[in-house]
């Protein structure tokens, strides 16, 4: 029976010229998808009479397609392909369909799913969307990793858009921290875009989840990406904007979040720093500035699992292994990358000694190399 339901939903969502609004209208006026499939011209007429003076009248084309095109062959073919690709579908009325999405404007009428959609994402779990620039600088990257790891460690699900930059880092860090993460695509469910994230896709399918409202083979086009942002914010309890330029797609997500009554958090950047202009503007407009993972968890009224955030203890333990010089070098580091040459000159040590000390510190997890030869302090 559910197979029939799936096929009918695929039919409904794959009719030419029938969009989300039309489908929603039908869903509102019919009890089930079977009834929509069975509807005739007379039924439409009746409904039209009901709304007579109302602007909500259905567009002629849409009704025509639903009345005329009762051929299920295409839907069946899609169903078979989805089964082969291990993709499931949910739709309003389906038991797994997130309730959160029912309350947003322009509810997606079908969602294709790869991986495992955690049922708890619906109700008692907290979800945070981490969004930001595709072209993040080192600060943005580090912050994303810090927050994504910290939040995941506290059992908060991370939602993002699987794009370059902040999105990808948010997903990766959440996976690394053993958390649950969900990615919303702006293209067909079986399309990997950007191509370079293919390894991330595989990891997400295994332990996280990828969803899209676009069916098979829909190629990525600029118009679709802002639209999927409403699903990202819709699924979350709050949106964290890490680093956004003046005109950034992440600001669209923040807008949706406000529209949907969700909290917007932003990580402050430096003034006059073009890569943080958008996020700073958000703070000016009333977004919650956050400087630590606790800020968000507090705001969500969650319990803080200190051990996940605070690595200080570990570092303290390590410090006993460090001699004075190593300690000095470690203390001289910050989030601003230092080139190895500077360390050599500052501490007046030989190249091989410097390489040695930095190797040790890196192995202890105290510092890291974002780029060869450049070192920063590790925050997590």
């Amino acid at each position, binding site marked *: 029976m559910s197979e029939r339901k799936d096929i009918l939903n695929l039919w409904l969502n794959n009719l030419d010229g029938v969009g989300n609004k039309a489908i929603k209208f039908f869903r509102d006026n019919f009890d089930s998808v079977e009834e929509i499939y069975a509807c005739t011209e007379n039924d439409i007429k009746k409904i039209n009479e009901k709304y007579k003076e109302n602007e909500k009248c259905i567009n002629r084309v849409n009704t025509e397609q639903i009345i005329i095109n009762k051929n299920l062959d295409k839907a069946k073919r899609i169903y078979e392909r989805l089964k082969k690709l291990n993709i499931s579908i949910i739709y309003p009325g389906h038991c797994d369909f997130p309730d959160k999405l029912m309350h947003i404007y322009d509810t997606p009428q079908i969602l294709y799913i790869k991986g495992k959609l955690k049922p708890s994402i619906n109700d008692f779990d907290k979800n945070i969307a981490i969004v930001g620039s595709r072209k993040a*600088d080192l600060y943005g990257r580090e912050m994303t990793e810090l927050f994504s790891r910290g939040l995941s460690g506290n059992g908060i699900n991370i939602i993002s858009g699987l794009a370059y930059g902040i999105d990808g880092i948010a997903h990766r860090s959440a996976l690394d921290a053993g958390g649950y993460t969900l990615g919303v695509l702006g293209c067909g469910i079986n399309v990997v875009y950007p191509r370079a994230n293919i390894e991330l896709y595989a990891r997400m399918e295994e332990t996280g989840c990828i969803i899209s409202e676009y069916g098979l083979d829909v190629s990525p086009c600029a118009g679709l990406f802002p639209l999927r942002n409403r699903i990202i914010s819709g699924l979350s309890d709050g949106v964290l904007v890490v680093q956004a330029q003046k005109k950034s797609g992440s600001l669209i997500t923040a807008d949706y979040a406000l529209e949907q009554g969700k909290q917007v958090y932003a990580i402050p950047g430096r003034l006059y720093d073009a890569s943080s202009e958008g996020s700073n503007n958000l703070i000016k407009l009333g977004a919650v500035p956050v400087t630590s993972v606790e800020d968000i968890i507090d705001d969500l009224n969650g319990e803080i699992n200190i051990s996940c955030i605070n690595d200080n203890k570990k570092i303290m333990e390590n410090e006993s292994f460090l001699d004075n010089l190593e300690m000095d070098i470690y203390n001289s580091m910050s989030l601003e990358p230092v080139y190895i040459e500077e360390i050599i000159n500052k501490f007046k040590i030989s190249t*091989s000694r410097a390489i040695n000390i930095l190797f040790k510190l890196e192995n202890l997890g105290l510092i890291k190399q974002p780029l060869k030869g450049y070192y920063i302090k590790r925050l997590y």
Partner: protein
Amino acid sequence: MFCKINSSAVQGVDGTIITVEADVSDGLPMFAMVGYLSSSVKEAGERVRTSLKNSGFHMPPKRITINLSPADVRKDGTGFDLPIAIAILLCMGKNSKLDISNTVIVGELGLDGCVQKIPGILPMVYHAAKEGYEVCIVPYENKKEAELVDGIKIVPVKNLLEAINYISTGIIDIPNDEEIKDNNNLASVDFSEIRGQKVLKRGMEIAAASMFNVLLSGAQGSGKSMIARRLPTILPQMTFDESVEVTKIYSVSGKLDNSSSLIMQRPFRAPHHTISVKGLCGGGSIPKPGEVSLAHNGVLFLDEIAEFNKTVLEVMRQPMEDGQILISRVNGSYIFPANFMMVAAQNPCPCGNYPNMKKCTCTPNEIRKYQNKISGPLLDRIDINMQVEPVSYEDIFSMPEGEKSESIRYRVEEAVEIQKKRFADEIINYNSQLSGKLIKKYIRLGDKQEEILKKSFANMELSARGTYRILKIARTIADLSHNDEISSDNIKEAIFYRNNMGSVKL
């Protein structure tokens, strides 16, 4: 009357003996040349006839046939003019006092009868000596080059008359050598000019000590080209055999100037990035050595490697592995040596500012595309990766002068000596040439070092080849400090230099 003279030609980088046969007989006057000749050889007829006339010889109206054998080898070049002219004269009754069956004659003729220099003298003479010939008549301008070969008498001639004189009388008047300046010592640049950049210099020292391949990446103006161009000044001296190999290649390509004898300085080739596949690898219907061969035993510097045509770069993969390149053409296969050290320089992105995102104007995709231009397999063959950071203002003016090339070179030479001793029983000279089997034989790690490598293997997602490269680099670092055992510090330093963190993670 019939006459036979030995001459020589070059195939690939090796000489081969060609016999010039001439026959003058009665019949309708004509001049015919046979023997699978290229057009430059066919034109020899005109040059020979005119230069004979202008040297005061009268060409009889007879039927003259010239054959160059073996007839199945395609002959190219202009070195057959002189032997043809002499063969004709001998046929016409000029008598020879000497037995010329043990003499090899090469040289190009001008219309006035002067003998001009030709490329490839060194391999020709080298081959002739090896084959047991005793005398070699060469153009005077090629004298220096020819004299590099031991065990064969060199008779340099300036014109046809001198050559004929020598053959008929056995006397040759060789003028005293004019003092020829040895301009092999062209070290006008020095490492001490580079301020700061200690990490980079140390990396270059390691690379020079074992001829490791190097990739330098950094913003424009950070000194990538500067340091690469100073690399030859710290490379070890070439051995005599290496010098001969290099000189042979340069001789074949006609790149030796009159004055130069043996090339002592390691070659440094920096082809422009518009170079074609044939320019890099060698080619042409009669293949000539390309840049990879001209850089044999030296440095091939590829500045702006990302701007090179991708197919051009990929063809280097095989020669980098084998140390030679095989070029096959219709008329035969040629092997050119190509054992070079590659030094490549690149910007991190099209605008050059990545990872400084505030300055970088490229999209993530552009950066990826730019960095992906060097394919994985090629990247894998690079031993030492270095990021070059622009020098700060203080460094330019306040830093003391760096170490002189000479003292770096001294350390390098010592490390090379140690390697030579180690590989006395093998055919290789440097740690960089170690194969998997030999690594197991010559490189052993202590437990502690093994542990470090093991940990890094997991952390850095190394490949087997990557691990081997680390071992080779560590061995060289140990050699530089005269350590018999590879220490933990050595292996850490090797890991630092090998690790390629320059790639973007988006």
